[in-house]
């Protein structure tokens, strides 16, 4: 069962690499924000799997919970920061 958890964690890392494409090449800033949000929600699961691999779930579940909170606050703050920037994306979106 431990090796299965290891393979699931590796697959999760590969899926995160797919999401990094949108963070690197996103046409607008909010596209990059979507990619960051997706990677953060995968990291919560990855932390729980690492906890099972090390046999210390009681410690890693708190870290996963704190990371989920932190990811949510970061995305909300960044989205509110780019709230009223009229015309910031127009040129970058056209091409």
């Amino acid at each position, binding site marked *: *069962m431990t090796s*299965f958890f290891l393979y*699931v964690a590796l*697959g*999760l890392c590969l*899926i*995160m690499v*797919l*999401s990094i*494409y*949108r963070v690197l090449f996103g*046409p*607008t800033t*909010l*596209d990059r*924000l*979507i*990619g960051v*949000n*997706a990677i953060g*929600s*995968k990291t*919560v*699961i990855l932390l*729980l*799997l690492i906890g*099972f691999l090390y046999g210390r*779930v*009681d410690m890693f*579940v*708190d870290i*996963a*919970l704190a990371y*989920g*909170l932190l990811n*949510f606050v970061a*995305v*909300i703050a960044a*989205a*509110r920061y*780019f*709230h*009223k*920037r*009229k*015309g*910031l*994306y*127009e040129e970058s*979106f056209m091409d």
Partner: protein
Amino acid sequence: MNIIVIALLVFGLFFFLAGAIGIMRMPDFYSRLHPAGKLDTLATLAMVMGLAVYNLNQITLGTILISLKMFLIVFFVSLASPTATHTIVDAGMRAGLRHWTKKKQRG
């Protein structure tokens, strides 16, 4: 018991993969939010539920408490992910981002 855990984890992994492909290949910012908002929530729900079932292999007070904390993560993610998606859409609408149409793709 292990079969349920493996099925739930593979289910969640499949939905994470579908969400990542959707984020990569959708044509527009607004349509990219659709796989990002929904599939990640469902996959998180399935995978955390599978890990919580695996954690309850031997039932003591400690493992029950850890599984309750995992369901707290699920509760928080199902509350926070739609809120974050809504905030991103609101920022895009107020910034005047135009949505994708078929005509723009041809021209």
